[in-house]
C-alpha cells in the first residue's frame, strides 16, 4: 500500500512555524467584525442569519440553565464549519484531521457536561445509567454497559470527526491521482473518474457541514441530559 498518500496529513511547518496555527486562526478573519450599524454589509447579514439559525436550532431543546452554553456551542459550531470547509480548498490544511485537535475539543466539553450533571443533580444523572423498566436480573450488566457508553463518548466524538474528514480527504486524493494517471492512456475512463471526483467533492462539502453539526448536536444532547 502506498503510504505516501498519508503525507498530506502531516503537520507542515515552515521555519519552525507550524501551519496548524494559521489554519486555526484564519477563520477569525472571515467573520464579521463589530459594526455599530443596524444593517451591516451583505457578508455580515448572511453570517448573522446563519448564526441565528444555528443558535435557535441548538438551544430549543435545552432548558433555561442550558442556555448559558449558547455562546460556546455556537462558536464551536461556527469554528468547526469554517475549518472543515476551508480544508476543501486546494493546498490547505485541515486541523481537525489531527486527532489532537478533535479530542482536545471533545474531552473538556464532555467532561464539563458530566461534572455539571453530577454536581447539580447527582441522583438524576446517576439515574440515567439505568433505563426504566429493565428486568431485575439485567440491572448490573446494564449499569456496566451504560457506564462504558458514557465513558466512551468523548473518544467517539473526537474520533468520529477526525475519521470522517481524514477518509474524505484521502478519497479525494486517491481518485484525483487515478484521474491524472489514466488521462494519457484511457481518456474515457479518466472522464468517468473525473465525474466521480466531482460528486465526491460535493459529498465532502456536505460531510464537512454535517460533521460539525453532529459534534455540536451530540454535545448539546449530553448537556440536555445533565442539566
Amino acid at each position, binding site marked *: 500500500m502506498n503510504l505516501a498518500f498519508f503525507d498530506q496529513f502531516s503537520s507542515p511547518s515552515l521555519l519552525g512555524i507550524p501551519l496548524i496555527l494559521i*489554519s486555526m486562526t484564519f477563520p477569525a478573519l472571515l467573520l464579521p467584525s463589530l459594526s455599530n450599524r443596524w444593517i451591516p454589509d451583505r*457578508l455580515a447579514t448572511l453570517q448573522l442569519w446563519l448564526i441565528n439559525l444555528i443558535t435557535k436550532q441548538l438551544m430549543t431543546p435545552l432548558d433555561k440553565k442550558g442556555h448559558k452554553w449558547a455562546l460556546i456551542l455556537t462558536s464551536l459550531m461556527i469554528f468547526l464549519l469554517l475549518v472543515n470547509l476551508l480544508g476543501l480548498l*486546494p*493546498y490547505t*490544511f485541515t486541523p481537525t484531521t489531527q486527532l489532537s485537535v478533535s479530542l482536545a475539543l471533545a474531552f473538556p466539553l464532555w467532561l464539563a457536561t458530566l461534572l455539571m450533571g453530577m454536581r447539580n443533580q447527582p441522583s438524576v444523572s446517576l439515574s440515567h445509567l439505568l433505563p426504566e423498566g429493565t428486568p431485575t436480573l439485567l440491572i448490573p450488566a446494564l449499569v456496566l454497559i451504560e457506564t462504558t457508553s458514557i465513558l466512551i463518548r468523548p473518544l467517539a466524538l473526537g474520533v468520529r470527526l477526525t475519521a470522517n474528514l481524514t477518509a474524505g480527504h484521502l478519497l479525494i486524493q486517491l481518485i484525483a491521482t487515478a484521474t491524472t494517471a489514466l488521462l494519457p492512456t484511457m481518456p474515457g475512463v479518466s472522464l468517468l473518474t473525473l465525474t466521480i471526483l466531482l460528486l465526491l467533492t460535493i459529498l465532502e462539502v456536505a460531510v464537512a457541514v454535517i460533521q460539525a453539526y453532529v459534534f455540536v448536536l451530540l454535545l448539546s444532547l449530553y448537556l440536555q441530559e445533565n442539566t
Partner: protein
Amino acid sequence: GPLSERPLMEVRLGELHTWISTCNFSPQGLLGAVQKAWSSYCAKYIHVRQGGPAGISMLLAGYCLLSYGWNYQHFSK
C-alpha cells in the same frame, strides 16, 4: 503633504526608499501598519452595502497561496 504622511499608493517609485526610511519599524509601528492595511482592505471590499463575492474570494485565494508556499518543499519532489 509631507512624504512620511502619504499612504503607499500615492508615493512615486523614485521616492520609495525615502518613504521607507521614514517608516516606524518598532513593534507598535508594524502592528499599526498591519491594522491600518487590514481595515482599509475591509472598508474597500467587505463593508460595502452591495458587496459581492470578490472580498471574501480574495481572502480565500490568498490563504490558498499561503498554504501552497508553506507546503512547497514537501511536494516539490
